[in-house]
């Protein structure tokens, strides 16, 4: 029997290997009898624990107070005046079983979601980190297999024991759900959403793993910790109408919260999250649309969100695996990704129409959309590091430019080609691409202002736009500074660039605060307009604002001039060095 089973398994693996060798390799290495048995054993032990912990809590006819919430009907005893469960004809308490199963179902759901998402991310990144350390990832890169097949094999193969253990839980989960009167369609939708979110998390984790080989053994812990944090935020019922509400979409458990279990013959309902405040997500909106009001809209939106983000991560992941020497994100890709992220984030800033009270209280657009500029600031800083090419790439590009310029004298064609290169060539300096991305963010901000119903929007909108404009100009200067640092001879230029940006974005305002620069009066308030947080804008005079704009323009012009000369000089010297070396 065992031999026959082994033969069937081998034949199955052989077929899988014909379709995806990577998947076969991962399964072959992991699906050993001992591992499989151990996984199933752990899975069943966890299931037994989850069920037994509720069964022992059930009320008995001994006046214990535990588990009274599961009584079909509570009565007061005449002797001790204690509440107890009404007993049935057989002498045992009458239990409201759907409520019991609903609680078991909730706990199994939590185990499914958290173990699948966090455990899966950990395993994938740990495996990738090991492959990179060992040098075997290069074998895969050099093989004629498309990277799509390799990634698919990794996603389906590396966490296979985890999948197996969780799959063994599905019968219990499904049966508990059905016995708790959850509709089958809702359960199937939950599995679908869980799969889509897992795809999104896993692709993001792998991408992060490929981007940060230097972190080595710390990588899996960091990514698992980040995922845990995101799920924790999503699991909390708190909703503040800001970009942070986006995290709610990554918690598939929320979908089950729409269903309230009804006990047999009674009106009482049993919310999924009883004992917690989990109702916040029901007021979730996106561009004034109440997506959280109904399970169907929530499901569709969460599904679309996970799949769109997952698809983005997949595209950049494939790119990274195929060509590790290029920037993590292509310039053209970045424009699409920024548009996508800005729209999602802006949507969560305009969840519902501001109330009249909000407006009478003197709130402005800046207060209403406060989290959009902050989210975009973070997004822009991350983008800088993903978009700006390394010194070697810029050197190669500048040498090529120098060679091209020297060979041709059609200046108009040059400018056109230079512009095209700066907008789309991965090795060209990334300043213009960062500027385009900031432009996209500004466009989405305009859209947000346009769709928000506000009684007298003009002043508030102008202030918000100006505030974002100062912030964007400051960020662009930061990007140019980073690019300039990347062209220096510092080996670990990314760390230096990271430190510089942190100093410019956070350190500079802290210094201003410590020096007592006021936001409200005095000439020092204009210094705040040359930071990433131009909070003094409402208190600034027009002349001061004009001065700040001039300061930004001067800084940008100076940085662009320095950078252009540096790149041109590098191209020239690089070309001379190469031709001299080859000549010699």
């Amino acid at each position, binding site marked *: 029997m065992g031999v026959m089973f082994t033969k069937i398994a081998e034949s199955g693996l052989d077929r899988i290997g014909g379709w995806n*060798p990577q998947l*076969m390799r991962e399964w072959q290495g992991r699906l050993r009898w001992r591992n499989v048995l151990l996984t199933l054993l752990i899975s069943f032990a966890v299931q037994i624990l989850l069920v037994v912990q509720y069964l022992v809590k059930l009320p008995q006819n001994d006046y214990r107070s535990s588990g009274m919430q599961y009584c079909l009907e509570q009565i007061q005893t005449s002797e001790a005046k204690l509440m107890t469960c009404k007993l049935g004809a057989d002498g045992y308490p009458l239990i409201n079983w759907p409520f019991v199963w609903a609680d078991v179902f909730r706990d199994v759901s939590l185990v499914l979601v958290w173990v699948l998402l966090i455990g899966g991310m950990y395993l994938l990144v740990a495996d990738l980190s090991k492959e990179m350390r060992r040098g075997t990832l290069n074998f895969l890169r050099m093989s004629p297999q498309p990277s799509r097949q390799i990634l698919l094999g990794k996603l389906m193969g590396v966490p296979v024991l985890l999948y197996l253990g969780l799959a063994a839980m599905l019968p219990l989960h499904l049966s508990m759900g059905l016995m708790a009167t959850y509709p089958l369609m809702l359960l199937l939708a939950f599995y679908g959403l869980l799969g889509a979110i897992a795809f999104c998390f896993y692709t993001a984790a792998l991408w992060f793993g490929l981007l940060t080989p230097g972190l080595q053994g710390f990588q899996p812990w960091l990514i698992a910790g980040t995922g845990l944090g995101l799920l924790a935020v999503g699991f909390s019922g708190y909703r503040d109408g800001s970009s942070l509400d986006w995290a709610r979409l990554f918690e598939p458990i929320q979908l089950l919260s729409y269903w309230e279990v009804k006990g047999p013959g009674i009106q009482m309902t049993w919310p999924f999250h009883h004992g917690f405040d989990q109702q916040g997500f029901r007021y979730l909106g996106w561009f004034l649309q109440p997506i959280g009001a109904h399970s169907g809209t929530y499901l569709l939106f969460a599904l679309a969100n996970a799949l769109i983000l997952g698809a983005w991560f997949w595209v950049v992941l494939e790119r990274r695996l195929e060509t590790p020497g290029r920037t993590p994100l292509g310039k053209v890709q970045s424009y699409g990704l920024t548009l996508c992220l800005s729209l999602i984030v802006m949507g969560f800033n305009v969840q519902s129409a501001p109330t009249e009270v909000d407006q009478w209280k003197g709130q402005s657009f800046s207060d209403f959309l406060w989290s959009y500029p902050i989210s975009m600031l973070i997004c822009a800083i991350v983008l800088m590091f993903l978009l700006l090419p390394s010194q070697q790439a810029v050197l190669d590009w500048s040498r090529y430019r120098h060679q091209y310029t020297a060979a041709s004298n059609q200046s108009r064609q040059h400018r056109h080609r230079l512009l095209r290169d700066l907008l789309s060539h991965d090795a060209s300096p990334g300043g213009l691409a960062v500027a385009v991305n900031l432009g996209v963010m500004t466009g989405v901000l305009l859209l947000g202002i346009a769709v928000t119903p506000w009684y007298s929007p003009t002043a508030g909108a102008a202030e918000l736009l100006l505030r974002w404009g100062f912030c964007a100009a400051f960020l662009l200067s930061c990007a140019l500074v980073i690019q300039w640092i990347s062209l220096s001879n510092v080996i670990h230029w990314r760390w230096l660039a990271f430190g510089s940006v942190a100093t410019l974005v956070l350190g500079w305002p802290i210094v201003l605060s410590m020096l007592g620069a006021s936001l409200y009066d005095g000439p020092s308030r204009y210094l705040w307009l040359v930071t990433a947080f131009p909070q003094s804008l409402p208190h600034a005079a027009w002349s001061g604002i004009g001065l700040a704009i001039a300061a930004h323009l001067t800084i940008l012009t100076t940085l662009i001039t320095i950078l252009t000369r540096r790149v041109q000089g590098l191209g020239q010297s690089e070309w001379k*060095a190469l031709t001299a*070396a*080859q000549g010699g």
Partner: protein
Amino acid sequence: MVSEILQANPMAQNRIATDAAIPTLSVQGLTKRFQRKIAVNDVYIDLFPGEIYGLIGPNGAGKTTLMEMMVGAEMPTLGEIWIDGEPFRQDQNSPMIQRCIGFLPDDYPLYDDLTVWQYLDYFARLYGMASPQRRSRLYEILELVQLTSKRHSRTTELSRGMKQRLGLARTIIHQPSLLVLDEPVSGLDPVARMEFRDIIKTLQKSGMTILISSHVLSDLADFCTTIGIMELGHLVESAPLEELYRRLSRQQIFIATLGDREALAQALAAHPCIKAQAVVSDQEICVEFEGDEAEAGALLRSLIAANLPIRHFNHTREDLETIFLKHLDHKQVS
């Protein structure tokens, strides 16, 4: 085996059918810069089918970088690579070309959780080998690297020499037309090195083109047809082995006679390959010789034909290691 290689590589088949003179590997002006350092500078190499090219040079000379560029693991700053007459762009997915290349890095990493068979089977599948051929190919390769008896063992259970042979088996499983081996014998004992040499010779006979770097120069001298010397990123010397010996190796022939030493000296003086003579003893002369093995043989035959009673004829030449060290010394002095 050659027919199998051609079967696996239709592109190579076309190549050989149309033009036998097209090199398996052609490297044109390959240059690699890391920041300000030039790792490889303007290297040109042409490798023809069946050739074994030995790449030697001190540590940091740029051998590994050059090899990594050839196999697509590293992007060149400048230059072109052609495999079997087709341009090879590292930033583009070119499965046809990738099937023509086999690369064994110096640390030949393995997967510890697989058996020898599973490991090779996995790579055969990665390279798209279909089922019936794959199985027979696996047995054939295991036989070649003498690991048939170990096919069910985990890779962790193998000795270093076996692991290295398994790495080589992985590299040639898909029958590449070009094999690139980076320091394949480092850390191996003499027996393992000898076994490895035999495998390389077998592969050469099958028509595979091999580029190999090693610090064990005696091994390279044993099987390489061409030698390239790299230094500070430059390919400072690249020539067939015999030509290298002729040009750079100091050759001496010790000739002892039973007869008159003066007669022997006169006979030798007329020979064009002899540059100088020195008397060793009453009956023995040492000559500086410039020529190859065939010319040395011709010299011996001419002396016998001249009725000189030759007692001893010993042709010695500086080995590859001495040539390399002399080359380095010369470069450092210059």
